[in-house]
C-alpha cells in the first residue's frame, strides 16, 4: 500500500500560521520541533514533516481502519535532505513506514510505503481543477490535492 500528500506552499503560507503560539506543540514531537528550529529553511521543514505524516496517515488509516486527528501519533525520524530530495521514516503505533519527498520551490510532495525501497510508483503532478474529476477513472493508488496542485500516484 502507498500513500501520498502534496502541499502547495503558497496556499499553506496563506492559510496556516504555524508560528502561532501553541501550533507546533500540537502537531510535532520535541525532536521534530528541534528539526524545525535548527533547519536552514524552517518553513520547508514544517511542511515536509507535515506531508510525511499525511502520506503515512493515508496508509495507516486504511490498513488499521483508524480515523483520528492525531498528528502527534505519527513520529518522523531519520529525515535526510539532499538537494531537492528528502527521505525519512514515520512510525505510527509501532509500525515503521518509509517516505520519499520532492522539495520544489512551489510545492512539497511525499510518497510513503510500507517497505524500503518504496514500491515503484509513477507520480503525476498537475494543476488541480476542482470541476474536473476525470482523474478518478485512471485508478490512481493514492490521490492528494491542495491549492493549485493535484498529485496522483500509480502502482
Amino acid at each position, binding site marked *: 500500500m502507498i500513500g501520498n500528500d502534496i502541499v502547495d506552499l503558497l496556499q*499553506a503560507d496563506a*492559510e*496556516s*500560521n*504555524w508560528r*502561532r*503560539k*501553541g*501550533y507546533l506543540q*500540537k*502537531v510535532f514531537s520535541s525532536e521534530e520541533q528541534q528539526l524545525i528550529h535548527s533547519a536552514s529553511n524552517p518553513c520547508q521543514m514544517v511542511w515536509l514533516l*507535515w506531508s510525511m505524516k*499525511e502520506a503515512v496517515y493515508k496508509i495507516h488509516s486504511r490498513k488499521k481502519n483508524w*480515523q*483520528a*486527528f*492525531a*498528528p*502527534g*501519533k505519527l513520529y518522523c525520524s531519520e529525515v535526510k535532505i539532499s538537494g531537492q530530495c528528502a527521505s525519512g521514516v514515520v512510525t505510527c503505533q509501532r509500525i515503521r513506514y518509509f517516505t520519499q519527498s520532492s522539495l520544489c520551490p512551489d510545492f512539497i510532495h511525499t510518497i510513503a510505503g510500507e517497505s524500503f525501497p518504496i514500491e515503484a510508483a509513477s507520480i503525476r503532478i498537475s494543476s488541480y481543477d476542482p470541476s474536473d474529476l476525470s482523474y478518478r477513472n485512471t485508478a490512481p493508488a493514492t490521490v492528494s490535492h*491542495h491549492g493549485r496542485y493535484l498529485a496522483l500516484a500509480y502502482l
Partner: protein
Amino acid sequence: MDRQLLLSKLKTIVASYSHDKDALEYLSETTDFTKDLKINSANLVDVVLDVEEEFDIEIDNLSMERMLNVSAAIEIIESKLKEK
C-alpha cells in the same frame, strides 16, 4: 454554557477555515469538519487552538484526536468547562 450559545461560538470559529459555505450555513451537530466543511487538516489545529482561547480551556491530545465533528467538539468543550 447554553448549548446553542456554544454552537454559535463554534460556528464563528470554524467559519474562518471552512471551504464549503453551504455546509457552514446548515451547520448542525452531525457536521463533519473535514468531510462537510472541507477544513484542511492543517487548519484543524487552528480550530483546536481557537477553541482553547475562546473557552479558556486546554484540549489534550486524546481529545484533539476525536475532534472531527461538531458533536464531538461540543462534548469535549462541555466536559472541559465542567472541569474548570
